[in-house]
């Protein structure tokens, strides 16, 4: 069986700078993979390549057996790649409910005509989406905030809402961009539990880009390490921890 996501010697250059160089990475179905590296190692760039924000200069990316060259971010989301952002990007003027509803729309394509006519099909569709959204919100204990403006949630809840919103697009692969940023130790523990829960509950793969060693080592089944845009190691957490190249990249020589 081929991998869900496959990066094949993917390279991107910005002018003279090679941000990611010949990166090979595979993520199988229902797998939790971590991508780590020191600051400026190309983690976020790799992330942006996978989600279609950048197009690779060379090499190929395929998702679910399909080449994703020239796919726009919204098309990739349709294929089943959902993401969160390093700096939280919620729809600030909307309620918690509407934030998730906007994402849940993806697989119920009811357009202009339906919204204008407001017939039975429209009402049923709206109800279906509303139920779906509420179910998701309840799973993540956000139901009580359904009418709260997204921007007035606490930081931790905003992070959680962003993940819920990404899940509402029914992804096969969820990409989390530094979800532990700005969290304290107990919040991190909670986050780890949450990621594990999502993976099991929704049966999806997760790619975690993270700075925080505790989180990555704690939950990832496999870890890839980037340094200066090159993958210097890949393996189980214990192997990574013992890898001299990784130690050197992180601590310097």
């Amino acid at each position, binding site marked *: 069986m081929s991998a869900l996501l496959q990066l094949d010697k993917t390279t991107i250059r910005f002018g003279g700078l090679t941000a990611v160089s010949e990166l090979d990475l595979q993520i199988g179905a229902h797998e939790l993979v971590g991508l780590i590296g020191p600051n400026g190692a190309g983690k976020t760039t790799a992330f942006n390549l996978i*989600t279609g924000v950048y197009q690779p200069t060379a090499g190929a990316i395929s998702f679910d057996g399909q080449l994703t060259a020239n796919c*726009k*971010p*919204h098309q990739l*989301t*349709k294929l089943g790649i*959902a*993401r969160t*952002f390093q700096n939280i*990007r*919620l*729809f*600030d*003027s*909307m*309620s918690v*409910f*509407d934030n998730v*509803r*906007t*994402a*849940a*729309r*993806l697989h*119920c394509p*009811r*357009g*202009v005509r*339906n*919204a*204008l006519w*407001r017939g039975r099909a*429209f009402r049923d*569709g*709206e109800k279906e*989406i509303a139920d779906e959204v509420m179910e998701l919100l309840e799973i993540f204990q956000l139901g009580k905030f*359904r*009418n*709260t*403006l997204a921007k007035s949630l606490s930081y931790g809840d905003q992070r959680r809402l962003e993940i819920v*919103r*990404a899940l*509402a*697009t029914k992804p096969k692969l969820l990409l989390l961009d530094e979800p532990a940023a700005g969290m304290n130790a107990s919040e991190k523990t909670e986050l780890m539990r949450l990621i594990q829960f999502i993976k099991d509950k929704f049966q999806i793969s997760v790619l975690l880009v993270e700075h925080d060693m505790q989180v990555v080592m704690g939950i990832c089944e496999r870890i890839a390490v980037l340094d200066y845009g090159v993958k210097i190691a890949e393996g189980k957490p214990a192997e990574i921890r013992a890898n001299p190249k990784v130690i050197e990249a992180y601590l310097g020589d």
Partner: protein
Amino acid sequence: MNVRHAKFFLLGAIALSFLVSLFANQIKSYWLFISYDIGINIILAVSLNLINGYTGQFSLGHAGFMAVGAYTAAVITNQFGELNTFASGAVFFGALLAGGLAAAIAGLLVGIPTLRLRGDYLAIVTLGFGEIIRVIFQNMQSVGGARGLSVMHGWTNFFWAFGFAAMTVYVVTALVHSTYGRGFIAVRDDEVAASAMGISTTRYKVTAFVVGAFFAGVAGGLYAHSKQFLTPGGFNFMQSIAIVVMVILGGMGNTIGVIIAAILLTLLPEFLRPVAEYRMIIYSLLLIILMLTRPQGLFSLRKSPSK
């Protein structure tokens, strides 16, 4: 606005405007013409609100779309002589729709190439577009050029003005207050996040431009058959600004506020007639004071977050 009853609101408003139009000869024609202006301005402001307010694409070209609709509708109705009530209604309706469609096509043509631009850049490009339209009409001798175009029929009445105003309010409200319509607001709030949620931002922006332009075109047609005389100068930059002011004054993305602002700003110059020279000064002062004290718009009431 309660959306569940939106359809009833629409039908009720159209019926009401029809009833009022039956008694229109009882109303002093001065106020009658002002009421047409109110209807037209509501259409313009509410449709621009879809583009500027809900979708967050700052457009300064609304007068351009209005001009396209006005000239198209006028040229069509000028082909006809005197008609009975029913025939004139049918021809007028067709002409208004044709004007709207022509403006919608213009909206599509402007929309697609300019949607890569954001904020002030988009504003400048749409401003340029509005001016181009104006200059084209100014140099088009078949529609009178700079001398202007007489419109033979004064068919705009209370029914048409407010029927279409109700229609505009309905369409914009129904669009925005749906799961589909949350996409417009998502594009405004955060374009990057919107596209990561599978929303085709280009599609939404073009839709907003096309729908907005359509109603601007209809408003143009109504305007043409109310004033019965069109000059390209009537659709200049200042006209676009006047519509933008209504949207900002009412509160971006707040339909009721924008309607009230459109009514107020149509009536204000009438009440200021004794001091007509100061009209623009008061207008500008009002805006400055508003932006300082209520940047969210004068009538931004509580925002109902869902539904």
